[in-house]
């Protein structure tokens, strides 16, 4: 049992949970949440891949990649949420008519 093994499997599990959510969730917000879980899962795998048993330093390249992935994901999330807000508003306006 080493941390990389534990967290690597955690990452894969989180990715799979997100995948189920993204495929099954009906609520629009929850689908965004599920996708975000997937991205954290992928981040886990990259961070684990970079890990070297101490005292060796981890590989910095995957760390940079995960940071990039996090920023990309927040951008995508923001756009998806803006679409949700817009769509909900349009639907609510239609209901009023």
């Amino acid at each position, binding site marked *: 049992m080493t941390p990389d093994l534990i967290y690597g499997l955690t990452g894969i599990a989180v990715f799979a949970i997100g995948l189920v959510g993204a495929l099954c969730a009906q*609520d629009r917000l929850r689908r965004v949440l599920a996708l975000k879980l997937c991205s954290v899962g992928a981040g886990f795998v990259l961070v684990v891949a970079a890990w070297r048993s*101490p005292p060796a330093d981890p590989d*910095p390249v995957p760390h940079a990649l995960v940071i990039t992935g996090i920023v990309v994901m927040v951008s995508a999330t923001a756009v998806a949420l803006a679409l949700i807000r817009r769509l*909900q508003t349009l639907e609510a306006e239609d209901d009023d008519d």
Partner: protein
Amino acid sequence: MTDAAILFDLLLAGSVIALAIASLTVRDMFAAIVLFVIFGLLSALAWVRLSAPDVALAEAAIGTGVTGALLLKTLHHLRYVTGKLGEGPARGLTPTAPVPAGVIWANAAFCGMITLGLALAFLGAPRSGPGFDALVAEAMPASGVDHPVTAVLLNFRAYDTLMEVVVLLAAVIAVWQIERGLSDAPAPALGEVWQGFARLTLPAIVVVGTYLLWKGSEAPGGAFQGGAVLAAVGLLLLLSRIYVPQPAHRGLARWAFVLGAGAFAGVALLVSGGGRVAFEYPAEHAYALILLIEGLVTISIAVTLAALFHGREPVAAPVPEGRNDT
């Protein structure tokens, strides 16, 4: 000692998975978001355990903090437009058709098989296997900075980072476009305690954000983490109504959004020539150039993230939909 650490790892891993499941299954959407935020923070903790403090900082600040704020804002807006603003638990805000349990189980079984395959592939792969370690160690002296992650982000793989800033720019343009003319949900009344809190913490956040940026060349931190912390200033200003976006500020905001990508790409191009290619900083100026890029990118990130939180482009009050401009 090792056993205690492994026990901690197992507990943490278990809670991360449990929180992931809980945030997708709990019925109240507000609770789901809160659980997600806790999930993100614990993931960041796990990444600290895996000696990835930069990633943990970024995940805590951006992946969890900013994302959580975006989710909560959206939830607030959805409650507003569906007329459920004052109600307690937030359930079923978006129209849903019941999913047959069979479909869910089929999907879960499908994903379970994928997980099994991935887990087997993961177990079969070399751990602590080959990597960039040696290459990075060799190239570090020429990178201009002392922190490997910053060197990778701003020098070795600067092209990726530039495109990441471009993704942020694309996001803010898309969000402005999508939400233009959308009416705003009334801001929640936060009270005087909140105002005092905002006034008290604002300067501290500015200091922390700048410190993270500055420190990034030698220690964990950098443009993205610093930018996200500074974006919190924007969130506080917006939430406490100290700053209300005005149509007249749009020009300035546009410049702030493009500042990071423009300056980054500009520097990358300007250093080329004389036998150098784009992104190849002259060794003697590498540190200064990287710091310059990081500083400008930080400003851009902070403004962009705050704008993503605010959402719609501020247009002159009631205009006929989509007709009027500037």
